[in-house]
C-alpha cells in the first residue's frame, strides 16, 4: 500500500503524491495523445461541461424569448425572430442530448472511475478510448458548424419531411452537418460502450466477481449494452436521412411513395433506449451516493443490479409510445403502452431500494448527497408523469405539449443533477483537491429550486394546451412562462456558483485525502489523485458497501481502514 496514501504523511500539508496521473508527464501532447483513461476522462469532462454551458445558454435565451407572447398579443419579441428561435431550441436539444447527457456520465466520469473501481490498470482498448474522444470532438464541431450553414430548425428529432425538405440553404443546409455530426457522435458512444463491456468482462482482477462490483459498474454495463445494440440503428437511420436529403433516395418521402413514419420508427428505436443510456449510469451513481452518504450498506444489491438489466431490455420495446399520434395501429399502441407501464417496475425497484437504504442511515448532507436526494424527487415526478404519457388516451391530449417538455426534462435533465453530484463526489479523486462544501450545497439547493420553478409549471401549461416548440403563444400563458423563465435564471445562478466553487477548489482547495467520504469501493483505496498506473498491485477486493471497517482519521482528514490507522500502512 505504499505511496497510495500520500496525504497521510502529514494532514493538510499534502503535496500530492510525487507521481500521479496529472504530473506523470507534461506538455500538450502528453494530454492530446494520452492513452490514460483518467486523462481521457478529464478531457471529456472539460469538453462536456463546456458544451453543457453552450446548451444551457441556448436554453436561457429560449426562456427569455418566451417572456412575452408576441407582438400580436401585446408583447414585443426583441431577442430573436421566430426562425432563430427554432434554431436555438433545435440546437439546445441536439447539444444536450447527443453531446452532453449521453456521453456525460459514462464517457467523462465512467472513463475516470470504471477501471479504478474495478481494480484494473486501464480500459481494455486505450487507443479506441482516445479515438472515441476525438470522434466526440469532431461530432461536436460538426454540430456547431451547422450554424454557419444556416442552422437547423427541425427539432432534435430530425423528423422527416422537415429534415429532408426544409432548410435555409438548399439541399445541404444546416441539417447535413448536424445529422452527420450525430452519426459521428454515435460511433463515439458505441466505442465507449464496447470498451466498457470488454473491460468489465475481461479486466476484473481475481476476486472481483460480478456481484462484488459496485452498482455504478452494473449501471454502466447495462448502459454499454444499450449503446452497442441501439446506436448502430441510429447510425443507419441518420445515413438514410442524409441519403434522402442529398441523393433523393425516397425511403421517407411520401412524394416518392416512401413513408415518413418509418423514419419515426427507426429514430425512436434508438432514441428511446437512448433515454436509458442517459439515465442508467445516473442511477448507478445514485446507488453509490445514497449508500456512501447514508454510511449504510446498500439495500437490495441484486435487485438494483438486475433492475438495471431489466430496464436495458425493456427499454428496447417501448419506442412506439412516442408515436401514439403518428398513425400506428391501435393494437401496436396498446402493446407499447403496456410495456411502457411495465418499465416503471424496475425503475420503482431502484427508488424503493434507495429509500430503504436511507432508512435509519446516518445521512450526511454533503453536496453530492444533496444532488442525489434532489434526483430522487425529480425522477419521482419525471417517472410518474411518464405513466400519464404512456396512456394512449391521455397522450392524445398531452402529446407535443409542454407537459411532455416538463416530463422529459424531469427525467433527462434530472440526470444532470446526478452528473453534478458525481462531479462533486469524485472531484477530490480527480483533482486531489477538496471543494468548499457550504457553497456547493448552496449551489445544489439553488439548482433544485430553479429546476422545479422552471419545469413544474410547464406541466400545468401543458395540460392547459400550450404546445411545445412554439414561438408565439396566447397571453393567458404569460404568467406560466414568466415563472418558468425566472426559474431558468435561478438555475443559471446556481451553475455560475458551481463553476465558482470548482475553480476555487482548483486554485486553493484543501488537498484531498485518499478517502474523504468514507466510501468502500476501490477507487478510494488509491491516492488522490491516483498514480499513473492506478494500482501497483491490485488491492484486496472487499465489499464495496461495507462501511464498518472504515473509520475517520483526523490526521489524514479522511477515512482509513480500521487497523491500518497510525500503522505503517497508513503513513507512507
Amino acid at each position, binding site marked *: 500500500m505504499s505511496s497510495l496514501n500520500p496525504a497521510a504523511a502529514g494532514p493538510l500539508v499534502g503535496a500530492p503524491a510525487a507521481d500521479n496521473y496529472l504530473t506523470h508527464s507534461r506538455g500538450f501532447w502528453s494530454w492530446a495523445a494520452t492513452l490514460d483513461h483518467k486523462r481521457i476522462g478529464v478531457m471529456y469532462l472539460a469538453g462536456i461541461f463546456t458544451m453543457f454551458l453552450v446548451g444551457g445558454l441556448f436554453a436561457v435565451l429560449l426562456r427569455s424569448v418566451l417572456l412575452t407572447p408576441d407582438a400580436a398579443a401585446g408583447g414585443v419579441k426583441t431577442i430573436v425572430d421566430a426562425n432563430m428561435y427554432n434554431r436555438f431550441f433545435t440546437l439546445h436539444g441536439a447539444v444536450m442530448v447527443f453531446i452532453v447527457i449521453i456521453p456525460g456520465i459514462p464517457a467523462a466520469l465512467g472513463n475516470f472511475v470504471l477501471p479504478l473501481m474495478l481494480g*484494473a*490498470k*486501464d*480500459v*481494455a*482498448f*486505450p487507443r*479506441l478510448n482516445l479515438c472515441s474522444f476525438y470522434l466526440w470532438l469532431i461530432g461536436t464541431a460538426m454540430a456547431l458548424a451547422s450554424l454557419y450553414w444556416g442552422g437547423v430548425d427541425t427539432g432534435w428529432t430530425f423528423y422527416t419531411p422537415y429534415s429532408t425538405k426544409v432548410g435555409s440553404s438548399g439541399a445541404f443546409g444546416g441539417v447535413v452537418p448536424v445529422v452527420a455530426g450525430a452519426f459521428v457522435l454515435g460511433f463515439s458512444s*458505441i466505442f465507449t460502450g*464496447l*470498451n466498457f*463491456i*470488454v473491460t468489465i*468482462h*475481461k*479486466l476484473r*482482477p*481475481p476476486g472481483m466477481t460480478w456481484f462484488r462490483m459496485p452498482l455504478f459498474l452494473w449501471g454502466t454495463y447495462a448502459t454499454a449494452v444499450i449503446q*452497442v*445494440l*441501439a*446506436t*448502430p*440503428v441510429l*447510425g*443507419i*437511420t441518420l*445515413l*438514410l436521412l442524409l*441519403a*434522402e436529403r442529398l*441523393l*433523393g*433516395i*425516397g*425511403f421517407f*418521402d*411520401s*412524394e*416518392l*411513395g*416512401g*413513408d415518413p413514419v*418509418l423514419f419515426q420508427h*427507426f429514430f425512436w428505436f434508438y432514441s428511446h433506449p437512448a433515454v436509458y443510456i442517459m439515465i442508467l449510469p445516473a442511477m448507478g451513481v445514485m446507488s453509490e451516493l445514497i449508500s456512501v452518504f447514508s454510511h449504510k450498506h446498500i439495500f437490495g444489491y441484486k435487485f438494483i443490479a438486475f433492475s438495471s438489466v431489466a430496464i436495458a431490455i425493456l427499454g428496447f420495446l417501448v419506442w412506439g409510445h412516442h408515436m401514439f399520434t403518428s398513425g400506428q395501429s391501435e393494437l401496436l399502441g396498446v402493446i407499447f403502452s403496456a410495456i411502457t407501464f411495465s418499465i416503471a417496475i424496475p425503475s420503482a425497484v431502484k427508488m424503493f431500494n434507495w429509500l430503504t437504504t436511507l432508512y435509519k442511515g446516518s445521512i450526511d448532507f454533503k453536496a453530492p448527497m444533496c444532488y442525489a436526494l434532489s434526483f430522487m424527487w425529480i425522477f419521482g415526478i419525471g417517472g410518474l408523469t411518464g405513466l400519464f404519457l404512456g396512456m394512449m388516451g391521455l397522450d392524445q391530449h398531452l402529446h407535443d405539449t409542454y407537459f411532455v417538455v416538463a416530463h422529459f426534462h424531469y427525467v433527462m435533465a434530472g440526470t444532470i443533477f446526478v452528473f453534478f453530484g458525481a462531479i462533486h463526489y469524485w472531484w477530490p479523486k480527480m483533482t486531489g483537491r477538496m471543494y468548499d462544501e457550504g457553497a456547493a450545497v448552496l449551489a445544489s439547493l439553488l439548482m433544485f429550486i430553479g429546476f422545479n420553478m422552471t419545469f413544474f409549471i410547464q406541466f400545468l401549461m401543458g395540460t392547459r394546451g400550450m404546445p411545445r416548440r412554439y414561438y408565439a403563444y396566447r397571453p393567458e400563458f404569460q404568467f406560466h412562462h414568466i415563472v418558468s423563465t425566472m426559474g431558468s435564471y435561478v438555475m443559471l445562478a446556481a451553475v455560475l456558483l458551481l463553476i465558482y466553487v470548482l475553480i476555487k477548489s482548483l486554485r486553493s482547495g484543501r488537498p484531498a485525502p485518499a478517502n474523504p467520504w468514507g466510501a468502500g469501493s476501490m477507487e478510494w483505496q488509491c491516492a488522490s489523485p491516483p498514480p499513473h*498506473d492506478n*494500482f501497483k*498491485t*491490485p488491492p484486496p477486493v472487499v465489499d464495496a458497501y461495507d462501511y464498518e471497517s472504515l473509520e475517520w482519521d483526523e490526521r489524514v482528514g479522511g477515512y482509513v481502514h480500521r487497523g491500518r490507522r497510525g500503522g505503517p500502512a497508513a503513513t507512507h
Partner: protein
Amino acid sequence: MTQMADAVHPTSHAAVPHGDAHAHGHHPNLEHHFDSLTQQFDAGKLGMWLFLATEVLLFGGLFCAYAIFRRNHPEVFMYAHQFLDTTWGAINTVVLLVSSFTMAWAVTASQRGQRHLTSILLALTFLGGVGFMVIKAVEYSHKFHDGLMWGVHYDPAKHEHGHGHNGAHGAAATAAHGAADHAAPADHGTAGAAATAAPAASTHPEATTSVHAPETSGQPAATGAEAADLPPERAPLEPSQVALAPAGPAGLHTGGHDLHGPRPDNVHWFFGVYFTMTGLHGLHVLAGMAVIGWLFVRSVRGDFSADYFTPVDLGGLYWHLVDLIWIFLFPLLYLIH
C-alpha cells in the same frame, strides 16, 4: 478460440505473473494493462465480436427497410429484380467466398507462424476484394447507364427502350419521358386537366401500343412526333406515381410493357434498397481491404508469430462478416421468386 489461444502460447502466459506486467522480459506485444497475452487476445476477440454485432445492427436497419417495402409491395421487387445481373452477382459471391477461404487459411497460417504463407494468403484475399469491387463497379455502371437508380433519379425510359443501347434513340426517349415524369407532378394544373379530358385506366390500349411499338419493332424510331405524343397519354398515370399513400399493386405502368412485364409504381424503391445495401456493403469491403492491406504490410514486416497473431485473427473475423452480409444480400436482391 480461447482454448486455441491458450494452447498456442501457454509459455508466455506462464511467464507473465499476475499484476507484474511491467516486469522485464514480457512479450513485446503485451500491452501494459493486460496480465497475459491470453487475456489480451480474449479481450480483443470479445471487442471484435461486439463490433461485429454493431455492424449487423447497422445493416439490420436496412434489412428491416427491405422487409417492410417487400412485404407491402412485393410486385416492385418481383419486377425490378429482373434488372439485376444474376451472373455477375453469382460470380461475386464465389469471389467473396474464395477470399473468405484464403482469409481463414491466412489466420491458421499465422497461428502456426508460417509468415511467408500468411503474406501470400493475405495478398490473395486482398485481390478477392479488388475483384469484387471491380465487378460491382461494372454492375453499377450498367445500372447508371440504364437509369436503374434510386428515388428521384430512377428513369424508366432508359431501360424500357434502351436495350439496344442506341444512343440517339435512348436520348430521344429519355427526353420525352423525362418531360412526362418530372414536369407533370410539378405542373399540377396540366396533369389534372389531362386526367379529366382523358380519364384513361392504366390499361389504356393506345398507351400500350404507342409506347410499346418502338420496343417490339426493335428500331430506333422514336421520331419527334412520337415523342411529342407521349406526354398527354402518360399524364393520367402521373397522379398514381405521386400518391401520398401508395395503394398497393394498382396502377401498373403500361409504359413498362417490355421483356420484364408491366412496370408497377415506385420501382425506384427497389433500386434505393439495392444501392443503399450494396453501397454500404461496398464501403465495408473497402474498409476490409484497408485492414487486410495493413495486415499484409505487418505480416511482411514480420510482426506476427505463433505467439502473437491477434490482428490477423480479428481482421479475419471482420472479413468474414463482410462476406456473410453479401451472402444475405445476394439472394435477397438477385434471386427473388
